[in-house]
């Protein structure tokens, strides 16, 4: 079944915006979506897969290499022809074993042919694409550590059972979860470039609109897809245009100062906050088709780039999003 179209998702603008920004500039470093059940988190991620522009990759390459020279030797590819493939969006299920994630000895080959071969895992599959972890806060610690390491270095190294393999693993991490079920370790939080909090819409009209579209999607699929695929294509084109204009975008000194001041006032840990905020603001400006970065761009993306980098205050029931908004108000006016 085709996924629900991205453009047909009602509301949840911040989540949609965050995902589009990472599609424009993957180096922003992933999105964390926290919110209640049934708010369209998984729907949005799966919809994103269908929305993204295709990539050029070598056919049959386990790590989706762009050029023939980059295909790893262990893949044993005979013909190296390039073709257009959809951007990979790989699901990392809870309870996936280390072997599934990093790849391991190919038992099948070992048993039948007695060969020592490498069977690539999910990290290889996700290279140049997205890695989606639903319920990321329930992920087992040792898998989290492993992901942190790979997300940081962009390379997956397997040294076990007599295998010694390394391959590129550059992916955008998308995590979703329900904060009531457990917190995320700050180290992993920090690795996500953007973070959004979703809640179910409170207005009856919006809720009815959601139900109506879903119902149409299920009962009148053909017509519904026809109607929304055009919108999806429009977003896709806009992403492609934004990617191009991103390089030409000017970043005035003044805006850089704004960014630094904002992060300083919020006391966010490390410099990652500044970098991400800047990248996100640039991607946002490109998306809006503006020629130069301004204070307005920074203001719009500040909450999603910074809210998960603040020190947690267990008594603050309003949530860190409001704290960021307040500080943005104070610093940028």
């Amino acid at each position, binding site marked *: *079944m085709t996924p629900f179209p991205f453009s047909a998702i009602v509301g949840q603008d911040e989540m949609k915006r965050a995902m589009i920004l990472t599609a424009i500039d993957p180096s922003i470093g992933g999105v964390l979506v926290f919110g*209640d*059940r*049934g*708010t*369209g988190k*998984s729907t949005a991620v799966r919809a994103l897969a269908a929305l993204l522009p295709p990539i050029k990759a070598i056919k049959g390459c386990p790590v989706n290499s762009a050029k023939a020279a980059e295909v790893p030797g262990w893949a044993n590819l005979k013909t190296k022809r390039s073709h257009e493939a959809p951007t990979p969006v790989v*699901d990392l*299920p*809870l*309870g996936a*074993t*280390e*072997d*599934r994630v990093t790849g391991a000895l190919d*038992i*099948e080959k070992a*048993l*039948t042919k007695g060969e020592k071969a490498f069977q690539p895992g999910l990290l290889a599959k996700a290279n140049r694409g997205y890695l989606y972890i*639903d*319920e990321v*806060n*329930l992920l*087992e*610690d*040792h898998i989290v550590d492993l992901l942190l390491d790979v997300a940081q270095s962009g390379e997956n190294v397997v040294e076990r059972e007599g295998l010694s393999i390394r391959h590129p693993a550059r992916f955008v991490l998308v995590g979703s979860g329900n904060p*009531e*079920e*457990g917190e995320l*370790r700050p180290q992993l939080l920090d690795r996500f470039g953007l973070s959004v909090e979703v*809640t*179910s*819409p409170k207005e*009856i009209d919006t*809720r*009815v609109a*959601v*139900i*109506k579209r*879903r*119902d149409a999607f*299920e*009962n009148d699929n053909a017509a519904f897809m026809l109607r929304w695929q055009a919108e999806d294509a429009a977003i896709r084109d806009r992403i492609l245009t934004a990617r191009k204009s991103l390089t030409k975008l000017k970043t005035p000194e003044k805006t850089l100062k704004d960014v630094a001041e904002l992060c300083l006032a919020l006391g966010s840990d490390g410099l990652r906050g500044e970098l991400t905020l800047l990248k996100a603001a640039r991607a946002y400006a490109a998306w809006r088709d503006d020629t130069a970065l301004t204070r307005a761009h920074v203001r719009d993306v500040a909450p999603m780039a910074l809210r998960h980098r603040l020190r947690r205050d*267990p*008594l603050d029931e309003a949530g860190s999003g409001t704290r960021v908004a307040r500080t943005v108000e104070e610093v940028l006016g």
Partner: protein
Amino acid sequence: MDSWTQATLALQLLAIDPGLGGITIRARSGPVRDKLLSQIDPNTKRIHPAITDETLFGGLDLSATLTRGHLVQEQGLLARPGAMVLTMAERAPVRLAAHLAQALDRNAGHSLIALDEGAEPDEAVDPKLTERLAFQADLSDVSLHDTSTDPPGETGQRDARGRALPSDALTQITDIAAQLGIDSLRAPLFTLRAAQAHAILQDRDHVTAEDIEIACALTLAHRATRIPEPAPQQPQAPPPDQTESQNSDDTLNIPDELLLDAVRALLPDNLLEKLAAQKARQGRGNGTGAARKGNRRGRPLPARAGKISDGARIDIIGTLRAAAPWQTIRKNATGRDTIQIRPSDFRIKRFEEKSDRLLIFTVDASGSAALTRLAEAKGAVELLLAQAYARRDHVALVAFRGTEAELLLPPTRSLVQTKRRLAGLPGGGGTPLAAGMMTAFEQANHAKRKGLTPTIAILTDGRANIALDGTANRKQAATDAQQIARTLRGQGIDALVIDTGNRPEPALRNLAQTLDAAYLPLPRADAQKLSQSVATALGD
């Protein structure tokens, strides 16, 4: 509608439209449940909480491959659509729940009948799953006598689409879900599908008010998080006419109140208790905890026979050792001159991992406590320390007096150091209970992140009089303490309140209740007795 009728109806609807996801049946194993299950297709696949990924998703059939000498692929249970019965669903690990939830989300014709045999209120099916199942039925209070023996009507999957809906039905359903405090939008979608399926069951080509009413009752009642306020009595709306409402009459004007009543009638009596229990236990069982066996890390346990699955690590030496005695026999049997290993030889590595416990003593050193029992509390802590030392628990020490709390000792195993700090603890000043709990909370959180299991022991006489901001305000101080207690409980941190006052303090008992903690009022007693009670309350 009693819960038996409800359950049978839900099963019928499920058979018509598997897109409804499924049903959770809460009942102990017994004749009632068996009778209900006899209504479903006897060939339905059954799965259990310990099912392996290979069985679910398919993959290499290792045993067959090894015996036959060529590749044998195994088809997973999820490869083909259909209903599945999950027994002992309350014991399903997060991993399985996540896999099943994913399969249900894919909308490939799977449906799940989860049999919840939980005995305690906090033993329940993973919320990830219940969220994706349209129905829930509780048969624990149904006796065999109450069950009807109606032959199940004609079941079988039928196309539930295209049943004409009353135009305002969508709005109504959404509105009711909102009034019941159901945030998730999956719920109203289920209601819609259930109403359509019910119309089919009744052999109608359009959805009527009755369908919607029943669908609301079936899909919304168990999800309600608040009881809707009864609207002011309205003049009785004319009952919806079901006989002549054909397609021409598109709007049915079902009064919302009617639908709400249908749901309200099915709301469980102990809804609020259940909610509280649910809230209090959320966030538990996510990894940190007591001892657990695994096959990845920790202290090694003896290897055992088993299948290579789910990332279990093979114990090569053990496997070879098990295979060795058979080599000559197998060589003779097959004529092959190599080491021959059969699936039955496989030995799997096992490990036991224990998360250490951290006891955080939060000691009241205020003037009032100093006057009464500080010395005694100190003695008790010392005795507990000795026990903690024997169990290799970690301990931390927080004292509060004057206007603030102080971390006297970060988590440590050093007995000597703890004793020295404790002996040097002076008494006097106000009772900033909230600040003390706050510091303990920070420590507990920190410890949890490091994989310890924290327990907070609060020793106080309960007369909190300093608020969190350091001002002397008795009322604010109590509010602050309650608020932190709620946070602690929300985080699922175990606690223990020891009342060291001369007389048991009701406020402290309240606090313990908010914390979901054991409360030990200690009338004049010696340190030995205090430590004994603590040990009992901690459970070992």
